[in-house]
């Protein structure tokens, strides 16, 4: 098996085993890019438990996840194994109340008191 195939398998396994996964630059505690930081802040604000994967730690994951979703940028948010979007889409969904709606549909728990009206 090629190393690229290994990375694709690893990504598939990671998003299957964790309900909410954020591939980002830096960590949830210490984001190292403004776009990653925005998504981490939204998830933090909603009180969602998520697995953060720092793509800066591993170039093969950084490139691999772009190929995986056919998406050219980081961050990337996955919910229940499905690619939901990058920074722009997550921000737009959050502002429209669609992100919490998605969490409701997928059975992801979050802090409902934090929803903006």
């Amino acid at each position, binding site marked *: 098996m090629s190393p690229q195939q290994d990375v694709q398998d690893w990504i598939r396994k990671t998003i299957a085993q964790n309900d909410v996964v954020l591939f980002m630059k830096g960590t949830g505690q210490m984001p190292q890019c403004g*776009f990653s930081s925005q998504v981490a802040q939204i998830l933090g604000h909603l009180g969602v438990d998520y697995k953060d994967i720092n793509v800066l730690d591993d170039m093969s994951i950084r490139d691999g996840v*772009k190929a995986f979703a*056919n*998406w*050219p*940028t980081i961050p990337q948010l996955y919910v229940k194994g499905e*690619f*939901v*979007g*990058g*920074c*722009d*889409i997550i921000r*737009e*969904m959050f502002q429209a109340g669609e992100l919490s709606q998605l969490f409701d549909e997928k059975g992801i728990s979050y802090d409902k008191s934090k929803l903006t009206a």
Partner: protein
Amino acid sequence: MAMDAGEIEHLIKAKFPDASIEIRDLAGDGDHYAAHVVASAFKGKTRVQQHQMVYEALGGRMGDALHALALTTAAPKD
């Protein structure tokens, strides 16, 4: 590396001739843009698919020559 706003518009227009495109240079550095694209080709597509179509029109420049393009997309309202 940076990209001209006109070049971004040109590439999108080439793929979606009927698109209405608004581009703002956010930082004045030719590297941080916001674009709003409305195109009939987006009808029935998810947001992710719409953005993928724009990225495709940009031919691999997104995330490379073009560091930051805040993108919003929509299908035209009937």
